[in-house]
């Protein structure tokens, strides 16, 4: 059985029948149009599979599979949106999905890295930050700062920190959070959270799909 997490910028796959079971990743813009999987999630998932699991459910199932505690907040920061699941006493206590306001954060961070030829592994977490609620709207803060003499790298770092703080508040400002999604690979972003962060990587939704796939009578979602 092939599982697919079809994100806006990257698609992740896991073949449950393959030895080792390691996930693979491909840029969405390079994805062959005839791609088909058995079970899908993600922004574009419905186009590539007959059976689809919505991203919040996949995230929650992934959290249940990977996190042993009964109480936790799991935040997923992707290219297009941010979403979180909060569990208390082993049960769902809160959740959120911000795809409208607060959108395109991950995409914008990657765009800025390429445009300004930056390396996020080399940028330190700045003391100052921008008040960023949206990747697109936050761009103007960068331009304003650069015009006023702030170095580009510093301005972008403030923007990234602003995005991390916004995501942190969106998740309810917990003292500790588990982080999922493509931004786990960005040390500047991860280091900008004002709380303890446990990085789970970008394959949490695939793990959630795996848990769904192994259910004896899985619910079908069109």
């Amino acid at each position: 059985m092939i599982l697919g997490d079809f994100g806006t910028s990257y698609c992740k796959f896991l073949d449950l029948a393959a030895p080792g079971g390691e996930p693979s990743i491909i840029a969405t813009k390079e994805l062959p149009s005839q791609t088909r999987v058995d079970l899908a999630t993600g922004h574009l998932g419905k186009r590539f599979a007959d059976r689809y699991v919505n991203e919040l459910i996949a995230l929650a199932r992934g959290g249940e599979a990977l996190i042993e505690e009964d109480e936790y907040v799991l935040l997923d920061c992707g290219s297009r949106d941010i979403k979180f699941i909060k569990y208390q006493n082993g049960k769902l206590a809160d959740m959120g999905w911000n795809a409208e306001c607060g959108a395109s954060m991950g995409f914008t961070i990657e765009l800025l890295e390429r445009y300004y030829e930056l390396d996020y592994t080399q940028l330190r977490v700045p003391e100052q930050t921008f008040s960023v609620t949206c990747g697109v709207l936050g761009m103007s803060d960068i331009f304003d700062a650069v015009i006023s003499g702030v170095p580009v790298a510093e301005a972008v770092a403030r923007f990234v920190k602003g995005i991390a703080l916004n995501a942190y508040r969106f998740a309810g400002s917990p003292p500790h959070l588990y982080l999922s999604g493509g931004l786990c690979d960005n040390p500047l972003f991860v280091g900008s959270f004002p709380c303890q962060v446990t990085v789970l990587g970008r394959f949490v939704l695939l793990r959630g799909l795996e848990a769904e796939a192994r259910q004896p009578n899985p619910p079908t979602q069109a």
Partner: protein
Amino acid sequence: MNLDPRPSIAILSRFRKIGIIGVPPLEVIRKANEHGLIIHDLDEPLVREDLETASPFLPRVYCAILRTAVVNALHLELDAIYVDTGPGKCDCALHTATILAEALPIPVIRTRNTDTEAFGTPLCQARHRLIERMLAITAGVKSAAPYQNQPPTCAPTAGFWGVPPRDFSILELFPETTHIYGWARCMENKTPADHDLEAEFNPEVPTVFFAQSFCAKTALARYLAKKHPHALYLDVDVHTTSSARAKVQAFLELSGVKA
């Protein structure tokens, strides 16, 4: 604009087709029924016109239900419009009434519904498709007749708190055993200003607290959702977005609610 509702009720006999925004007092509806008037509930999408046609009159960032009411008012041939602007509606409706009164060549009559006679809430507690029960509740605003053939009450497995949404498609996600709370329940009870009834919820069942984006009721919805032990707060603007659908779907499934 007429500020006194009594003569407005008296002149109902002159009209053939009226529009209503919110829930006008039962006396207005009763007289309209007696005179056989056609009543259009302007809060619902009735005409195939772009919501943008309301933009010269209301800001784009405004309650989608009132923007819909303005579009209906602009495109339907009506003899008068009755707008409830009392404690059972909102300031946004009050200001919309002011704007419509100047924009339209017909009487726009403000009412203040403080009705307290309870008609009951059988549909809110029945077992049936949620979308059809909500349609019946909103249709009921056009009649003053007591309810007949009331369906039996069922044990709830989920709750929907809030107003009838502008886009009913969100309701398709709920099981038949979902009980309705909030202003929609007040609507069925024909007591839209009953704030105590509006604030009621059942802490025993997972409940979605819904409000239209940019509506004052977002504050109440979020406040009650925080008090409820197992709740999802949700606001939706014109159409139900895929993320809103996914949130409800995930909330119900992860809460163990069977479809």
